[in-house]
């Protein structure tokens, strides 16, 4: 029963094609898990083939011709070859990946007009310079608390630099949960738009730091719009 349940995803996935690689080094080490701390229990000899089943971080689950499964590191597998003799190649989490990648995600903490700000974002790259960002934030202050959900564009000026500056512009929804200055607030949802300036700094592997400041306008249903400043620093990664 347990075995049947555990085998279900594989059965649901059905038969699929895998990348086949041939070992070109004297041998390929296979570990029991996806990490350097797991022991090596199998080796695959030169000339033998492995099917690459899936990837987790920088390790690949592979299956040998004899049906033995194990985890090979990306650095070892890069020395293997396809059937036509060309070298295996795959994206790596490195400095080049910092410049060119499809997705990024991150977490920020900062200050929003005196309130604490927590926010998370996900971004999709159109190219090395232009990104579409979706950001969700919560601000928690003594006077005012609430949420923001925004979408914007970010233009990175020099993605190949370790310190790469960017500008960002966008807008979204601003929702107030608590406002002591206006306790009888009727309309709690407003629109907001921002323009911001920031910098990205590549740390290591897939990680980078982002710091940015935004000038924000809240289009209130009152007589005056509000203009607020926001500062935040965050840790992000790309994939």
């Amino acid at each position, binding site marked *: 029963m347990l075995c049947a349940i*555990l085998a279900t*995803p594989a059965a649901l996935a059905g038969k699929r094609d895998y990348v086949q690689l041939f070992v070109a080094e004297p041998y390929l080490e296979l570990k029991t898990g996806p990490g350097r*701390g*797991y022991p090596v229990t199998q080796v695959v000899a030169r000339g033998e083939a492995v099917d690459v089943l899936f990837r987790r971080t920088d390790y690949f689950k592979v299956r040998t011709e004899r049906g033995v499964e194990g985890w090979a590191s990306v650095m070892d597998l890069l020395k293997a070859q396809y059937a*036509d003799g060309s070298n295996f190649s795959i994206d790596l989490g490195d400095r080049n990946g910092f410049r060119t990648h499809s997705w990024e995600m991150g977490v920020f*903490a900062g200050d929003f007009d005196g309130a*604490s700000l927590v926010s*998370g974002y996900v971004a999709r790259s159109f190219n090395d310079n232009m990104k579409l960002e979706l950001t969700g934030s919560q601000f928690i202050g003594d006077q005012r608390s609430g949420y923001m959900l925004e979408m914007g564009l970010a233009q990175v000026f020099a993605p190949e630099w370790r310190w790469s500056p960017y500008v960002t512009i966008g807008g979204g929804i601003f929702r107030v949960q608590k406002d002591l200055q206006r306790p009888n607030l009727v309309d709690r949802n407003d629109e907001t738009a921002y323009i911001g300036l920031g910098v990205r700094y590549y740390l290591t592997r897939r990680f980078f730091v982002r710091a940015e400041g935004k000038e924000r306008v809240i289009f209130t249903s009152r007589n005056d719009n509000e203009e607020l400043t926001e500062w935040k620093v965050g840790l992000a990664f790309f994939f």
Partner: protein
Amino acid sequence: MESRTRVLLLTRALVAATLLTFSLSGCAWIKGIFGKKKTDEQEQIAREQTEEQEDNAAAPRVIDPEVERREIKRPAIDTENFELGAYYGSMSVEDFASNPVYGVKAVYHVTEDFFFEANYGKTRLGKTSFELLNPGVDPLNLGSGRPFTYYSLSVGYNFLPGEAFVGRKLALNSAFYVSGGLGSVRYAGEDKFALNFGAGYRVLPTDWLTVYIDVQDRVYNSDIFGTTKLTNNLEARIGVTAFF
């Protein structure tokens, strides 16, 4: 004198005749040379054309070069870095006793060491000492549900990865991890900025299934009793996640 003049004229006439003869014959000779060369070229071309025709007749083309090259499309390698699941446990909210907690957790493994984690959980506030001593009194006006919710965004680090042996034949991949981050808690109609930190232990019965236990401390400033104080709210839980 006359004879000498005649001899001179005759000699000149002879020389002129000789030169004329030579010049005419020279032209013919040269003409002969070029004419012959041209004939050789023509013959050569004709011979080649004949040979070519003979070749074509003898060996017709059997290999057609217009063969479509086969496109080799390599299958994409599936990446399984996301983890999604649920948990259940117990949470102690300072001054409000311990109550069951349940929630959802999403993880993205960035490297073999580091991961990002998001949690959203829900529990209930228990009764304060004052409420226990004075049954039927609700001084904080918390109502009947008394919900307490939180979310957190954390960064975690796997350490001591290895294998856990269950019996003599089964070895499961496992890892200890520590994590810490920020988020907020919401109770009694108020949001509070919260920091969290903790540690856990994860076992993988298969490559895609994770069972874990973990303990988190959620720290925030509470002012529900009129004075602001830093509270530590411990949460212990067991959960299951699936990689995809």
